[in-house]
């Protein structure tokens, strides 16, 4: 006897993806992780700082003299400073590994491109790349991204972080209509 419904994902490494957890549950777990990070280390969560530190390490390896002429890089990589010697770098690599592991156990490891139905894969790649360039430029300007500012700063009641949070969502909502073809 066969049934029309697809088989439920089973086992440790299921072939078909398991559904995502309930948003409130996911949020609660994330909140506990964030609290424990703040409690134990006094630091919250983040990732965009690692991106610029990895950049600084690359520049430092290729052209140390360029670092010496750039005050922004100098702060991270000047002299004998190792730009990777910062808490955010292990958090960055940990997050990559954590995402991978969750994907592995939930059957979501797959090379694919998520996109809106009306754009080509190439357009989606280009837009994702462009979005990354714009987002990280803004994140460095604001001294943190959605994780380091909105999530962590929001939790510690940092006034500037709440402003940044509203700015991010404000501008994304304001622009959403104009780029609706990308997603709908």
């Amino acid at each position, binding site marked *: 006897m066969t049934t029309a419904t697809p088989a439920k994902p089973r086992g440790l490494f299921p072939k078909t993806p398991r559904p995502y957890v309930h948003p409130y549950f996911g949020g609660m777990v994330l*909140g506990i992780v964030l609290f424990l990070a703040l409690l134990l*280390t006094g630091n919250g969560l983040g*990732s965009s700082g690692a991106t610029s530190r990895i950049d600084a390490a690359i520049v430092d390896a290729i052209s140390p003299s360029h670092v010496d002429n750039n005050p922004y890089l100098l702060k991270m990589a000047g002299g004998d400073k190792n730009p990777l010697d910062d808490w955010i770098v*292990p958090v960055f690599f940990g997050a990559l590994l954590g995402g991978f592991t969750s994907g592995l156990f939930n059957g979501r490891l797959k090379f694919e491109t998520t996109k809106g139905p009306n754009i080509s894969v190439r357009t989606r790649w280009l837009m994702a790349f462009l979005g990354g360039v714009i987002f990280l430029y803004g994140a460095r300007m*604001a001294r943190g991204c959605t994780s380091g500012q909105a999530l962590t700063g929001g939790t510690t009641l940092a006034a500037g972080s709440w402003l940044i949070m509203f700015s991010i969502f404000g501008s994304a909502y304001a622009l959403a209509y104009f780029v609706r073809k990308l997603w709908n």
Partner: protein
Amino acid sequence: MQFPLQSFIAVSAANPWTYVLFGVVGFAFGFTLEMSGFGNSAKLAAQFYFKELTVLKVMFTAIVTAMVLLFGAVGLGILDFSQVWVNTTYIASGVLGGLIMGVGFIVGGFCPTTSLASASTGKIDGMMFMLGGFVGAFLFGETEQYFTQWYNNAGYLGRLTLDQVFHLPVGVVVLLIVLMALFMFWGSEQLERIIGKKDMSHEPKLRLVGAGALVAVALAVVFIGQPSLDSRYVKLTFTRTVNGEQVAYTADQMLEKRLVFISPAEAFKAQYNQSMNPIYLDVRSEADYNLYHIQDAVNVPLDRLTEVIPTLLSEPPANSVFIVMSNDETAAVKAWKTLSASSVPNVYILEGGVNNWIAFFGKDDPQFQPNLNAGDDQLKYTFTAALGAGYKSCSPSPIEYEKLTFAQKIVLQLKRDKSGGGCG
């Protein structure tokens, strides 16, 4: 035990396992984001068309959960909030950076950490976003020099929290944010039902229990309140290097060993020391202040001291040194206790107070006579006129006093480097 643990505060090659600890934090972070669906750009973008408000729900549940736990722990005295990194407020670069991030979000479909969760599960768009991120961060590093002045100063308010902005107790702010979040959750469920055409009847009832629990904990945070100055004072520790070794002292030991009392010579020379920015706080009465005070000293009578603490905390603390003074030392010691317990960094006391300053810099001035009847912490001189800072000794000549010897007591406690906290 007092959290956060000192050895966990920063990674360092001296403690290699700190890398493991932060790696585990990152692992849990990435794992949670992926399992909540944040590796899927279509799901993230749906937020902005009101079809599915997963992003808002996850983010705000995380914020309010962490917030009630955090301020609960602070209220119970387990966690020292002054050791928790609070993102510094820069209004101008923050708002512009935020607006730019919003553009990147809706165009790219990710934010930096969600792109990690996405890329690590094989999503090619996630990888492209990550790659673009490296380019964007690089471009910022290359262009920052053209607006560095604006970037580092415009709208700088230092460590500023919402309770200070709205002059409300921390617990009340926490409760208000919890209520706001619950209202937003209710609103998003309505939007999902109407615009996203989602059947909400299968939503777990447990979420209502969770909402109730959140409000209950937030109310408890209001009820517990925040630790009193006294309880924070007894927990203060200061470290000084003695014979090449780090020694930790309590606040009372610092007073007892006179490690926070600086001589008039040191207080004066601080003005000409490039590494520090001294701020003289005169905690005497306005009448005494008008009679005689050191040039540039700010009059904050002791009973009004707590009003200025938020301002002092928002001074760029890297090199600000606060020097408190009374006529002798009694009121200044009280001020030192209050300021230190309020986490104001680098507070010192003028040794012997204004009386000692006058004895040191103005002993030959014929304009004042010793007042032999002065009690403790009263001016030991009588003045012919209330000239304020008009006397010669109020601003000693840097040429005349170019060479002064003193035992240096000021040890700049640097603020935690920006990169030592937050992701700046």
